[in-house]
């Protein structure tokens, strides 16, 4: 299958006046195939959003990336020129649009940057896309200001805006976190359907394992800027091999009633990863041995659809 996104040895580094201050993403490899949804899951501060931004080449000030990011077939080095074939949808649809312009105006701006098209054709194209994402009465949406629409409708409009660029890869950064569960569900259904129809690949960034389980084909679990377990959703969710993945799944209250304790992971994600040696998770890990502080484990295949970075994997 063709990869629409392939990331090799991606690092993101923060520098302050020439000195390296932090490296929140440390050597990530990822592939997203056409028509596939890859979930990127992890706690706050594990580097999942930065990975998404680095793939697009839009890093915050003071950050730089190294490594190779290939979108479609053209390897792009730290450029946002890949704009045409990749689009991103952010968490909060309420602040992603400019409140003083109509949605139609804002979508036209995107369209006209992307291709030469007449005004009336452009409007027709936008309205077609607004109806594609399931917005009722797209003519009215076209004329509306952001505050006149609900969060769910705005998120659909964001997706329409992304589709206007005919992306080969869609990056969704916590697309449903700000939405109610029933609305979130509809958005996920929509994404699932659109990727089947248009065949673009999706990188879905979420902290919610339930969402990952529901819609993703494959998943990569991030911890401290590194992929610590990856594989098909079925394999990883049903047979997690890394202690961190097990901890995350054990922490979910889903289906449990009181009396049953949740297996909390003690401690917090390390803040600065520069001086880290060995496995980043070892301080919170109940299976850690001396070797864990010396050797940083590499991703190793443990099955046909699964790879894990843990020295103790065989012992678990």
């Amino acid at each position: 299958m063709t990869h629409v996104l392939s990331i090799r040895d991606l690092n993101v580094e923060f520098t302050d006046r020439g000195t390296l201050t932090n490296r929140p993403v440390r050597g990530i490899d990822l592939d997203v195939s056409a028509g596939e949804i890859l979930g990127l899951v992890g706690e706050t501060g594990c580097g999942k959003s930065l990975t998404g931004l680095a793939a697009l080449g839009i890093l915050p000030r003071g950050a730089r990336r190294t490594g190779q990011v290939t979108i479609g077939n053209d390897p792009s080095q730290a450029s946002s020129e890949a704009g045409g074939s990749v689009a991103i949808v952010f968490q909060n649809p309420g602040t992603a649009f400019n409140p003083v312009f109509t949605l139609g105006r804002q979508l036209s701006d995107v369209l006209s940057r992307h291709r030469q098209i007449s005004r009336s054709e452009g409007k027709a194209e936008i309205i077609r896309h607004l109806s594609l994402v399931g917005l009722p009465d797209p003519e009215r949406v076209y004329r509306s200001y952001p505050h006149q629409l609900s969060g769910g409708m705005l998120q659909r409009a964001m997706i329409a805006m992304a589709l206007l660029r005919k992306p080969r890869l869609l990056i969704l950064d916590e697309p449903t976190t700000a939405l109610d569960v029933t609305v979130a569900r509809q958005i996920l259904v929509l994404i699932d359907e659109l990727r089947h129809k248009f065949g673009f690949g999706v990188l879905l960034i979420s902290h919610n394992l339930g969402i990952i389980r529901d819609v993703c084909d494959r998943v990569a679990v991030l911890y401290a800027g590194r992929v610590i377990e990856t594989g098909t959703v079925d394999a990883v969710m049903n047979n997690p091999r890394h202690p961190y993945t097990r901890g995350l799944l054990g922490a979910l209250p889903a289906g449990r009633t009181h009396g049953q304790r949740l297996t909390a992971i003690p401690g917090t994600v390390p803040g600065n990863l520069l001086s880290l040696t060995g496995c980043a998770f070892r301080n919170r890990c109940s299976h850690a041995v001396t070797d864990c502080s010396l050797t940083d484990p590499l991703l190793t295949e443990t099955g046909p659809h699964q790879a894990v970075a843990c020295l103790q994997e065989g012992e678990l």
Partner: protein
Amino acid sequence: MSPTTQIPAPTRSGPAGEQATLKPIKLLKQTLGRDRLAAVGAMIIVLVVILAVFGQWLAPFPDQGMGATNASARNLAPNAWNWLGTDQLGRDVLSRIIMGANPALTISAVVVAAAALIGIPLGAVAGYCGGWLDEALMRVTEIFQAFPPLLLAMVTVAILGPSLTNAGIALAISWWPWYARLVRAEAKSLRERSYVEAARAMGIPQLLIISRHVLRNCMTPILVQATVDIGTVILAAGSLAFIGLGTQPPLPDWGLMVAEGRGLIFSSWWIATFPGLAIFLAVLGFNLLGDSLRDLLDPRQVKR
């Protein structure tokens, strides 16, 4: 080896590893070290304060600074004896500038303090309580703001007579509404904060909530505004003196000196220019520092 072997913790700069508080002086040094403009501002302010406190010992001719005339040395250009020259009554301009720092700084500090003392409580109560009290207090401040400050000053001075003190009263009257409005806007937004709601849920008395949770958290904009305002009031008091409504001759005042030298600006430029420059530098200094205070007073800075 057993899996329970103690693993040495990796060094990390998480919250736990950090020193909880830094000495304010050290923090100030750090900020000034990072921010050159703030350092320039602070240096100017320190200079003005030194002149204000020790002026009578620093001035080469303290008696002339206070107004003693010297008819034999009128309108002298800057020279080795009178570095900045002398004015039309033969007084040393440098001495008068140095001696003028004290009244300038005193009046600004007093005016800003008075304005803040009136404005902050009114603004906090209006913003936190809202409703009709807010409406009433804000209408009163609008009435005060509607008068042009100079007009208000002229009326005050006309009633009380021209002097530095009366100019200060006039300025304070026209200045406090700005503080009331600033604090009200802050209090209105702070009122909606989670920690204020938590305090109400805990049954903390209203006055404590206002002082501890609301006022303490709007100190940053107040202090920034106050710092900038000290500079602005120096300018305003100078303006009043310039039009004859503030300090009266023969006392030293930068605004008054500009007024006195105005007629001789083409023949004896130094008489008006140097006091004008003093006003400019003082205002600039407070403005530069004011902007940087915002960063300095952020509690999150303590982490660095």
